[in-house]
């Protein structure tokens, strides 16, 4: 990864609020991160931690109302996406920023052939002729490892298996050579052996095409295998951010540490009893004035109830939003 290169995507202080009948839900609270060219940024967190909403807000995919992107800046190629009008945003989405969604069955249209759905973005964004688009579509299917690509362009989504459908989704996302690819739990709906195939494919495609990828998942194992850097989200905010080796080798936030311990090993030593994080993830009715993990944290002390910790640098490219210093076993002096 080229260090110091200007980020392709720079997100600052993003805040997203949902207005519901029973009040506001603060789903994303001051999230900041950047994405460097060619890098794979992993985003981990449990359901409700705000990881999907963050990505949906930054490219204007959330319906408003109920969603309200209240503050922040999303710089993509020098342009603030939050200030961009709907038409220009549409030109960026699908062309320069590609998407892969979780469920390949519901995100493909069942009444159109796969070929039609692949040709559509090519015609819309790249101004290709029908003929040229069809040739390119077949190339794309081949690229993602679908045998007999030309023939299969005429097939409907239901004629593909789950893994193959996800390959089609990847092909559509890659159609216009995006600079950024956002993948929201792309392998969660798949079986492990199929997931392993898709992960191999993504590694291969990154080498060939070199786009930057944001990979959202709740599976720490998947992240460990493919990411360069990782951000961990909890309660709508980033609680830890580190290069992948550093995060798994030297986790600093109590939530990250606990999360790593609750997953049983498949290789190596087997733990007699599973570590448990007691309690439930929070529902954020208001902007948190204290640490959202405090009630489940074994290290929580009085300061955690008074202030919401900012992200504190703890190492090279490594920060954690926590007042507790795990290495010295006491409160941090900040």
């Amino acid at each position, binding site marked *: 990864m080229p260090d110091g290169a200007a980020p392709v995507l720079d997100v600052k202080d993003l805040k997203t609020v949902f207005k519901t009948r029973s009040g506001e839900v603060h789903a994303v609270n001051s999230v900041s991160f950047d994405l460097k060219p060619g890098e794979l940024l992993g985003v981990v967190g*449990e359901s409700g931690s705000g990881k999907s909403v963050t990505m949906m807000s930054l490219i204007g995919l959330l319906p408003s109302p109920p969603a309200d992107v209240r503050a922040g800046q999303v710089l993509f190629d020098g342009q603030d996406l939050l200030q961009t009008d709907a038409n220009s945003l549409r030109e960026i989405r699908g062309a320069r920023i590609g998407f892969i969604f979780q469920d390949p069955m519901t995100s493909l249209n069942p009444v159109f052939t796969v070929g039609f759905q692949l040709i559509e973005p090519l015609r819309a964004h790249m101004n290709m002729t029908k003929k040229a688009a069809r040739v390119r579509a077949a190339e794309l299917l081949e690229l993602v490892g679908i045998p007999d690509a030309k023939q299969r362009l005429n097939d409907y989504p239901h004629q593909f298996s789950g893994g193959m459908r996800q390959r089609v989704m990847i092909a559509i996302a890659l159609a216009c050579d995006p600079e950024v690819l956002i993948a929201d739990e792309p392998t969660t709906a798949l*079986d*492990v*052996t199929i997931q392993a195939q898709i992960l191999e494919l993504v590694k291969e495609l990154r080498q060939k095409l070199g786009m930057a990828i944001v990979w959202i998942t709740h599976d720490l194992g998947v992240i*460990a295998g493919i990411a360069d850097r990782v951000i961990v989200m909890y309660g709508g905010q980033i609680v830890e951010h580190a290069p992948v080796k550093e995060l798994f080798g030297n986790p600093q936030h109590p939530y990250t540490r606990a999360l790593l311990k609750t997953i049983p090993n*498949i*290789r190596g030593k*087997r*733990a007699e009893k599973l*570590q448990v994080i007691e309690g439930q993830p929070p529902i954020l009715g208001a902007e948190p004035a204290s640490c959202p993990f405090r009630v489940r944290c074994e290290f929580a002390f009085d300061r955690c109830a008074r202030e919401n910790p900012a992200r504190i640098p703890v190492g090279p490219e490594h920060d954690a939003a926590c007042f507790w210093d795990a290495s010295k076993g006491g409160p941090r002096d900040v």
Partner: protein
Amino acid sequence: MFDGSTPRKLVEVHDLKMHFPIMAGILRRRVGEVKAVDGVSFDIFEGETLGLVGESGCGKSTCGRALLRLYEITNGSVVIDGENIADASAEKLRNLRPNMQMVFQDPQASLNPRMTVAAIIGEPLFEHANLSKEETASRVYDLMDAVGLNREFANRYPHEFSGGQRQRIGIARALALKPKFIVCDEPIAALDVSIQAQVVNLLEELQQNLGLTYLFISHDLSMVRHIADRVAVMYLGKIVELAPREALYDKPLHPYTEALLSAVPEPDPALDAQTERVILQGDVPSPSNPPKGCNFSTRCPRVMDICKQIDPEFRQVEDGRYAACHLLNETTNTSAS
């Protein structure tokens, strides 16, 4: 659990088959069948947890449901605590039900939204136990204590609970009639990682205190390694390998088990670097039209000619280890001669 004395077999399954008919045409004629479970045999010892793993569509859930005769099974016998339930009459079956219970995957769908927690947990007691109102109430409270639910929530409705708590309600209901055998069908699949450990620890604790026997169905191989004593691996309606936990995870014998285990992503970068991945090509064939010979022959990296002709027999290959693979036959044959 295994302290010298041979434990009693609580569940004995022999050649269980569950085929679902495919009907087509105006006359709804039978044109074929989905062989969801196609001849599985295994035993579960008293007090143990047998893990049943496999990918979606391999028939593991159907197997679990057929075991409790939630389906009319096609063929085979299922003996639970000495009674063959495969051909038991409806009345006899009803008397046997308290002994065998089930915890379902989706705690949202398996709890009636219009019933209070007390009514849900108390329903099996009302159906089977002939207790007075006061006795039922006190038993419900005991059960809520046992699964870690606050007694004050007895009159609340399922939607007021989180996923993990709902699963606790489902577990309390399964425990109400003091069963010996519980089929846990993906009990943690719908839960968040940090909640999964809570429920698994609860299941383990209950097993120790009440001497329960579990069939733990899951696609999460690392969780099965944690909770199960022995593990059975299913592929396309058949068990391909069955072995004690440590042996299976240390040295899988069947090529499918090997590929399945190697496909699980590893969160420890140090271990990840050492792991050699077997990436399987292609997808699982359809259970309505399984391949000739071994079911795994279409994807097996070590396929031989014989695999495409003859279906390998599921047999004991080492002490306590069973597998169905021609590769193992060959090695035992050559070492014997």
